[in-house]
């Protein structure tokens, strides 16, 4: 099942609104949030992007959904800095003059049991299915493609496996695949076969799908 961040395909959202001549940062605090994130590698000895992404994903869902991107960024990176002892929450709240809501704790068992796959098991043109796994921690296969079958378009070099990197599991690198799923496969038979979504998926997330 999915966390609140896993928004792909969720329906009920209104129109996409585009601001004309939008600046990169709208307010000074957004610059600060970005700078703190970019400096995290020097503040936290074992910082990595997956751990950070998950700290954002751990925000209370109503908080996550109701605030700006850069508030999520500040909340996520500050949570890690507090959890790892670089910053003190009481000190931050005294400085801010009010509460500083952080993300919630990591789940007790965050990682699914996915066997490491050091060698690429799939090739371009092959049919693959995304496993129906349901971890309560960080993972990167969007809910909308779990259990669905698609076709490999490209095999990439190996990259750090995010579920392990986020949760202190054994470091491992695996190939990812650009896997194309038809709209019909993802959203049901009243959709076409010509439109499609390509998802970039680690080897562990996949299994062969006959054909």
């Amino acid at each position, binding site marked *: 099942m999915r966390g609140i961040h896993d*928004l792909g395909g969720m329906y009920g*959202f209104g129109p996409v609104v585009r601001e004309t001549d939008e600046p*990169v940062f*709208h307010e000074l605090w957004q610059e600060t949030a970005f*700078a703190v994130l970019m*400096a995290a590698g020097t503040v936290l000895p074992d910082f990595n992007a997956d751990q950070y992404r998950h700290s954002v994903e751990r925000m209370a869902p109503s908080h996550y959904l109701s605030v700006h991107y850069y508030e999520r960024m500040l909340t996520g990176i500050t949570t890690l800095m507090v959890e790892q002892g*670089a910053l003190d929450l009481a000190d*931050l709240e005294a400085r801010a003059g009010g*509460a500083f809501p952080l993300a919630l704790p990591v789940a007790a068992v965050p990682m699914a049991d996915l066997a490491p796959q050091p060698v690429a098991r799939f090739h371009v043109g092959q049919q693959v299915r995304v496993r129906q796994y349901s971890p309560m921690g960080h993972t990167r296969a969007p809910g909308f493609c779990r259990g669905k079958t698609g076709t490999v378009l490209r095999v*990439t070099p190996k990259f750090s496996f995010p579920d392990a990197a986020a949760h202190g599991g054994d470091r491992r690198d695996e190939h990812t695949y650009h896997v194309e799923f038809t709209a019909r496969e993802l959203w049901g038979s009243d959709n076409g076969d010509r439109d499609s979504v390509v998802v970039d998926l680690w080897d562990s997330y996949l299994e062969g799908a006959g054909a």
Partner: protein
Amino acid sequence: MSRQDPAPIAARAAAVKSALLDKGLLNTETVDHIVHLGADEWKPENGARVVARAWTDPDFRARLLDDGTAACAELGYEGPQGEYIVAIEDTPDRHNVIVCTQCSCTAWPVIGLPTDWYKSPEYRARVVREPRPVLRELGLELPTDVAIRVWETSAETRYMVIPLRPAGTESWTEEQLSRLVTREALIGTALALPACG
């Protein structure tokens, strides 16, 4: 955890910054440099130059499609979120569009930090499910016989779209062409601007 009301977000950001400065974990030069990179150095004009080069130099186009990271680096565009760039080319039959549904990953060196609409829950949720209506809302009405491929940035690949070269630009310079390529064209929510705009 405190039961009081949350401090304003600006005060929370200032609190983190001042605490890190006081502890010597951050300095203002670093902050200024990072903000300069994000606001001024990483920008869609970079990706526009890559596209214009690909339109005018068949060898570069081949290198870009083969190894986007190396081809962008030839023009000096590299850095964080640019470690593995894949360029995807529109054709008359197929339009490409990029999203990151789970956070908002983007090829910073060639597209720039993402703007609010790209980061919005609305775009992240909807474009994979109903790309045509979303593109229409953003001003792009595609013919029904053009297939749409949505690229979800779920792993380490950072995508950029090579839009179709507009008609009537055969004699244009690379510099002129690059002005036709907007941030939205690099993401795929718009086409390159027409030659007579």
